[in-house]
């Protein structure tokens, strides 16, 4: 007779010390794991609910903000925690994002400071204003150099001189400015588009095409000799500084307010449009847009690509900011607070984890890109759990209950109402069009894809 029974050694299963992790023995036999499907589904529902529970997108504001609305913003591309902002009263502030305090500030311009950029060598800031000047400021990382512009200074006619390296004089008030990625060249926009060399006092060329005002201008950071501008005549113009001329121009149905180039795909860029949508463009095929981002209920004022090129953030006059995935038409998330006014600036931080927004109320707010994500060190357990939850959410994303929970967002009443009204209007327009189509000869009223509706005309420079 031979008898064997289960006799486990506790040493193999009980942790050796309190501080040690207990050894986990696994047995994947499905009989030991009943209700596998039902439990997995329940876990997916819980993961989705918890995502919404922990969704707290607002992190804080930078210092005390500005005295006037924030209308210009510059990232420092070599650093994650340094940004510069400029406001309507001509004050520029340079911020340390980690401590959320300003490093220094100065009054740069009389009236609005409309353009701001940190030069690629990280040593200076260029700013332009409606006072027809462009100023080059020194960034000093020396902690002794702590010059702050006194906001209580009643003498509005003086501007700061400390740290000012150079002043360039333009012939007209300036609306925007951007610096070349590698060379010492910058471009300004206003009544004309001018190309400047940083070492000269006069613009090196005038690239204007058409007579109207230019409201924004952006250099391509990858294909460095190309830049784009938007004008108040609803035009969207592409330039090449190698030929020293504009290359093509399209007219959209309404004005574009801002441009952002995709950092990963050099030929893709997004524009924020006055018609409440944002558009994605391929500069090689401009006869229609690649995608239309819908959702805002007022003019979109700014747009920015995330460093990965997968997402864009838009800020709108309707006091909300929205995050879109570039391959989707509707926003992934919408952020708002009670006190935030019309947004003029939205920018991703250079590590894509945060979003900055500047608004009419003078505050620069910091938001999380993923509302439920928390920074800080995570245990491997926590990380594994997050990855597992992410996979679960993906797998069950189409289940009606989960989709409803994941999509639900609280919106201010005014936005909700305007959305309803907007939807009604769109439905009515469509209805009207459909009626017209039904009562006219076949093919007379063609279906126009939403993506090509916005393009009115297109011209190439000969």
């Amino acid at each position: 007779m031979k008898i064997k029974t289960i006799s486990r050694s506790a040493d193999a299963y009980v942790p050796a010390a309190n501080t040690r992790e207990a050894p986990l023995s696994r047995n994947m036999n499905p009989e030991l794991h009943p209700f596998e499907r039902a439990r997995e589904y329940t876990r997916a529902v819980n993961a989705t609910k918890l995502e919404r529970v922990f969704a707290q997108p607002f992190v804080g504001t930078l210092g005390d903000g500005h005295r006037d609305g924030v209308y210009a913003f510059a990232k420092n591309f070599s650093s994650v925690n340094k940004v510069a902002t400029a406001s309507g009263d001509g004050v520029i502030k340079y911020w340390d994002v980690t401590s959320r305090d300003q490093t220094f500030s100065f009054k740069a311009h009389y009236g609005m400071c409309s353009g701001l950029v940190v030069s690629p060598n990280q040593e200076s800031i260029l700013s332009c204003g409606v006072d027809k000047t462009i100023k080059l400021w020194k960034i000093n990382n020396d902690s002794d150099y702590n010059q702050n512009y006194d906001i209580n200074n009643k003498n509005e006619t003086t501007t700061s001189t400390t740290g000012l390296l150079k002043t360039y004089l333009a012939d007209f008030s300036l609306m925007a400015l951007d610096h070349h990625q590698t060379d010492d060249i910058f471009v300004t926009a206003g009544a004309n588009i001018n190309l400047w060399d940083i070492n000269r006092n006069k613009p090196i060329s005038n690239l204007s095409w058409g007579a109207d005002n230019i409201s924004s201008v952006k250099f391509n950071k990858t294909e460095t000799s190309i830049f784009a501008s938007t004008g108040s005549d609803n035009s969207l113009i592409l330039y090449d500084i190698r030929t020293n001329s504009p290359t093509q121009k399209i007219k959209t149905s309404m004005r574009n307010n801002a441009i952002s180039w995709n950092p990963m795909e050099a030929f893709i860029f997004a524009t924020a449009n006055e018609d409440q949508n944002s558009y994605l463009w391929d500069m090689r095929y401009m006869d229609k847009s690649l995608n239309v981002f819908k959702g805002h209920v007022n003019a979109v004022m700014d747009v920015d690509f995330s460093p990965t090129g997968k997402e864009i953030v838009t800020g709108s006059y309707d006091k909300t900011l929205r995050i879109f995935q570039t391959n989707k038409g509707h926003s992934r998330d919408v952020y708002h607070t009670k006190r935030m006014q019309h947004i003029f600036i939205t920018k991703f931080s250079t590590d894509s984890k945060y979003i900055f927004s500047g608004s009419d109320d003078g505050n620069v707010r910091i938001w999380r890109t993923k509302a439920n994500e928390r920074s800080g060190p995570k245990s491997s357990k926590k990380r594994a759990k997050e990855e597992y939850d992410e996979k679960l959410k993906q797998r069950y994303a189409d289940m009606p209950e989960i989709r409803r929970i994941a999509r639900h967002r609280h919106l201010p009443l005014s936005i909700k109402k305007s959305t309803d009204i907007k939807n009604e209007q769109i439905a009515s327009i469509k209805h009207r069009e459909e009626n017209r189509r039904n009562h006219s000869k076949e093919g007379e009223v063609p279906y126009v894809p939403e993506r090509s509706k916005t393009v009115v005309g297109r011209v190439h420079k000969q």
Partner: protein
Amino acid sequence: MSEIVDSQNTIKNGGNKLSATARKRQRQLKKMDNEYEEALEEAQRAEILLTEEQGFIETDGMEKSWRFSQDEIVKNVDISTANKRFELKLNDYGPYTIDYSRTGRDLLICGKKGHVASFDWRLGTLHTELHLNETANAAKYLQNSQMFAVAQKKYVYIYDHEGTEIHKLKQHLDPTLLDFLPYHYLLVSAGKSGWLRYHDISTGEMVGALRTKLGPTVSMAQNPWNAVMHAGHSNGQVTLWSPGMSTPLAKMQVCRGPVRSIAVNRDGRYMAALGADKTLKIWDIRKFEELDSYSTPTQGNSVHISDSGLVSVGWGPHVTIWKDCFKSHQKHPYLTHLIPGSQVQTTKFVPFEDILGVGHNNGFSSLIVPGAGESNFDALEINPYETKKMRRETEVRMLMNKLKPDMITLDPNVIGTVDRRKPHERLTAKEQSEKEAAALEDEENKSRDDVEKFIKPETSSKNSALRKFKRKHRKNLITERSMRVQKALEREKELRQQKKDLENNIQRKKDELENAFDRFK
């Protein structure tokens, strides 16, 4: 190449071409499914990593395993197992029903006369001991050994690990049977009232009260695979219940006479039922078919199935353990044990151990049954070696992942499957039930006509079409149709008798109370 492209572009869904996004999503899902299948294979391959071995008895030559006494077994096993064989002599408060916690570490014994004790049976440390001074019919650990429920004379009470009464569940009247569905956090009670009551113990809500309409419930067991409750009744029927349905999911005629005890194995395929007609029936509960029948010399009291599929039967003072009885008919049991001068009340295998606990009139016995338990546990599911911290974490996790009561169905894998009908063809739950009811009624009418057509009193009872039908469909499953056939058969018999009486000029007795005044004659 062109064919492949074409087939991708025309994935059909009810004749409609899918949109580009739908096709993309379909590809994503397909990829996820593949990953899932790969993981399954990997899991299967991981079996070789399992460290522990199953227990067994190997016999040489003429030795018969069922002749081995516990004393002999104790001599031949290692010391740690031998220590697990013990007896508790509790002559005053029996008979004892017992319950093990899900980890198998703790034992709850409940004497009919109100003696309840919870203890760690391996270490021999007592958690609590209660004298309730009233009848205690059954006791059951809840999600872990920190709480247990006792079915007392009138109500169900819940006690914590120190024996403090924390709840009195007044809705559960006259309970004699208790069970707990751990993944749904449902306490189920049944008893003399003939009602099955589901109580969610995490929220304190009554989830369902189901009227069996079959008199007092005699026995009850849960199907651990799909959480369906099996209730045994005094007419020999076993009914299957889900809290969302007021009618049983299925009815089975298992034996003649009351069903004394039921057990379902852990993968939910087989049910063992012990009848008062001295039978042990093995049922396939996926096909609703009787597989096998064993007889017990006297009425059995208790049956239980271990993780490895051993069946223990307690009858009179005996315990018989059967092995492989789901695979083929066994001539001899695997092991037997006698508890002289006592009556076995409950037998329960200990999870993850080769031990069988037996509660009887004179106390409790712990028997060694090699090969009874699952040797390799999954620490993320149930961990017999869990620490206090792990126990708490498990409890929170279980609560978070609590399943909804309406997820209890006969096939637990139906959740998450795709309803392939088009949205406009899909019905709401209400429409569905209405439609089903109408269809059922239609069929009933039709088959009623069918059946009544066959009532022919002129043929002899042997050749009756109805009897033929019954012979042909001799199944113990009670369906609407079989019940109608039975009724029709009785009606036919009556008509045949009438006809006979008429031929023999026997005056049929008229209703004696034809006239209201007749009773005064």
